[in-house]
């Protein structure tokens, strides 16, 4: 018997509750209705991207012990370099602002807020009339994890709470040790560079900014939570400022690449669809007894969204 189950249950409960509330407030009941219809076809359309994300997650889940061993033998040990670079910033941050209320706030944001932030965009973007944004999001997540995994293997570094326990308290785990059981399932203590909490939150925030037109209410919420998650990683003594800076850069890079990739793929698909449509209309012209007008207009539009 372990304390894992109660923690997972409470995270699932709170994330579901927040998604429900945000779904109604941000997406709106009518569009939310579309999620049910869209989700399966959208995921089928982005099956390559979903597959890529799953592969990355499985590799990171199963291969982590092996990668960790490689990291221990061959990885760059950057703990003292990072410490030399930024000194006591995290200690200063914690020492200056620490209060029980903030600790409670940042602990909740780090666990519940972060989980919500990652899950909700799936719902929101599945409610959109096109699958493009959802596809971009999945690609960006996959890139974040994949690059993060490579960097975790190449760089071996410990976070502030492990290196300067006299100056930085491990606030999350000291006051909520049960969360430790959860994070131990998904993370290793030497995986601090870069901060994936930061990079994934900033990724979501960037998408929120880019889809401001569709979801104007989501942008401020996403920015607030993402900002809080970013600060919480340092406030709680888990990450260095350096990890956060690189995490942000990683996020922006991944968002950019996801746009480039999905646009390129869709262009290719569209031109392929156009070619099909041209062939089709040529075929149509060869059979003049059909009503050619309707066929030529509709076919490319359908192909474009494929």
């Amino acid at each position, binding site marked *: 018997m372990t304390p894992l189950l109660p923690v997972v249950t409470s995270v699932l409960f709170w994330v579901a509750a927040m998604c429900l509330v945000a779904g109604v407030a941000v997406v709106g009941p009518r569009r939310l209705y579309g999620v049910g219809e869209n989700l399966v076809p959208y995921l089928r359309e982005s099956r390559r991207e979903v597959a890529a994300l799953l592969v990355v997650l499985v590799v990171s889940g199963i291969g982590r012990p092996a990668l960790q061993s490689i990291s*221990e033998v061959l990885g760059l040990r950057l703990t*003292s370099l990072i410490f030399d670079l930024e000194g006591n910033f995290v200690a200063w941050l914690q020492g200056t602002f620490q209060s029980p209320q903030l600790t409670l706030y940042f602990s909740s944001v780090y666990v519940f807020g972060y989980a919500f932030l990652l899950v909700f965009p799936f719902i929101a973007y599945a409610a959109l009339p096109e699958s493009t944004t959802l596809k971009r999001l999945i690609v960006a997540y996959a890139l974040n994890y994949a690059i993060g995994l490579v960097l975790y293997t190449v760089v071996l570094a410990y976070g502030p709470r492990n290196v*300067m*326990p006299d100056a930085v308290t491990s606030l999350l785990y000291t006051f909520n040790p*049960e969360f430790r059981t959860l994070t131990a399932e998904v993370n290793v203590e030497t995986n601090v560079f870069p901060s994936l909490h930061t990079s994934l939150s900033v990724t979501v925030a960037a998408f929120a900014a880019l889809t401001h037109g569709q979801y104007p209410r989501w942008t401020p919420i996403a920015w607030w939570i993402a900002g809080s998650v970013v600060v919480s990683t340092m406030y709680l003594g888990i990450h260095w400022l350096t990890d956060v800076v690189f995490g942000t850069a990683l996020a922006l890079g991944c968002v950019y690449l996801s746009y480039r990739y999905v646009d390129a793929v869709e262009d290719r698909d569209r031109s392929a669809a156009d070619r099909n449509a041209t062939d089709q209309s040529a075929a149509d012209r060869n059979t003049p007894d059909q009503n050619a007008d309707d066929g030529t207009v509709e076919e490319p539009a359908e192909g474009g969204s494929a």
Partner: protein
Amino acid sequence: MTGRISRRDALAGIGLAVGSAGCAGRARNIAGRESSAQLVLEIRTTPADEDPNGIRIARALAENLDAVGVDARIETMNGTDLRRTVLLNHDFDVYVGQYTEVLPFDPDVLYGLTHSKFTAEAGWQNPFGFTDLDVDELLEEQRAADESDRARIVSELQESMCEKQPFTVVAFPDALAAARTDRFVGWETGPPISATGLLTMDFIDERSGDDGDPVTLRLATADGRISENWNPIAAEYRRYGTFMSMLYDRLAIVDDGATVPWLAREWEWTDPETLEIGLRDSTWHDGEPLTAEDVAFTYEFLRDTSMGGTEMPVPSPQFRGRGSIVESADAVDDSTVRLVVAETDETVAERALQVPILPRHVWIDRAETATVGGFELDTETTEALVTPNEDPVGSGPMRFVESTPGERVVFERNPDHFLVRAGSVDSADAETGEEAETDGDSAESTTGTEEEESIPEPYRGKPEFDRLEVAIVGSDVSAVQWVADGYADGTVSNLGPDSVPRIGRESDARLVSTQSAAFYYVGYNARRAPLSNPRFRGIVASLVDKSTIVDDAFAGYARPATSPLATSPEWVPGNLRWDDDREEDPVHPFRGKDGSLDAEATREALREIGYRFDESGRLLARDQ
């Protein structure tokens, strides 16, 4: 530093340009000298999650080193990694570590730790690369000396070592644990981090024993190594060897300061250099009988794990000091083994009996050179040193069941163990005891009685649990929380200043504190300048503010010390004792007051012993 290099380059350039022999020679004389740069010292230790105390010692030392002009850097690495780089590869400047024996030990421990003959070997044997003729001589003498002389020699040895500081003893921590007393009691009788402490635990929760579920002792630790590796001689993976001592029997164990027979039923000195040992009737966990051959094999194996298969012996990285006491081991018959020791004090020789006895039929195949995917990478390593020893076959009171790396490991009671038999004899004793005692010659009845007699009472019929589950948790604080929430009965982790107050807040958990001999120390690599200089090490030692560290890093749950033998005060001479009036180290007192360092005075001391500083106060060093 860059300034110097460019000046040197410029001089060389000018020298070449002028082309005159005299001038070029002068340029070579100047430029040919290596320039100095600031001394960089890397301090290695484990991260706070794994051990909350070591990193705090490292931080305090680094701060003081920085203050006197050394560029001190801390590199955290997990326990396995730290041991690998320090003990096996000798690739370190300074490290903060903890000694491996929890119970007070004999001074002969120092033989393995500091004798110069071990410097080239990998493992716990002299990892410091410390070489000193006087210390070597004293180490040899204390082994051979008789009881009356030995105390004097050991005193002298400690004085010599404290002066030369192959390592700096910082403090002896209390073995702290959070424990619940609703199911098991006896946490205080032996440290729960020792095998004997765990084995003698008493089960008191009668109601849960009735429903047929096995009685399970549940422990929580932040050290995951026991879930990955069960090799009793792999120095990288063993902390105190607690669980290994439950899997692998030793010929003798230390109980309450006395050496008592364990796997050995008894021993006898047949002459001053020969020890004849009778073994108990015992089987390995795989059903094979344990014989004198296994014991003889173990001693040879510890000396050379290649069993003569390589050009140079490949000694075991653990138990090397102890193993070196035994010159040869021979099986007389199936249950009798003869150990030949050189001229050796009896208590030292008894120390040699405290090594885990390994099954020959399992380990003989591991004497071959280790390979990775069929390739030999290094002829100095045998399979025995690198095997994780999955499904360990021991003869001890517990046997291995299963493990999930990083999560948990499960052991179960070995029903065939002599402790269990001694327990059943105990209960049967009421009826047949007298008869057995008078009828001494009948083999069947004597085994039981003799076992009973030589096994100390607290161990008979133990352990009282059928299963032992060790959960691997994230940190000391998590371990305490597991106990408080009822997921574990006790912690076997080192607890730090963040977790101790937590125990007080939880109504169901109690703080258990016992003395531990596993001292924290700062180890120096004497193979590297300037740490090769004992005077320099002495000054580094005086930068370790032991009193303040005990207050801050251990929240007071430790005692500062000078001698590594401080938990055996009978061996420590008065001038090396840490008394509370003095509040400072008698040999290398802290260079400062009330926790703040007098950096200028320390620099002056360094100047006096020949070190130089640049204009901004940085300590200069060459050839690093």
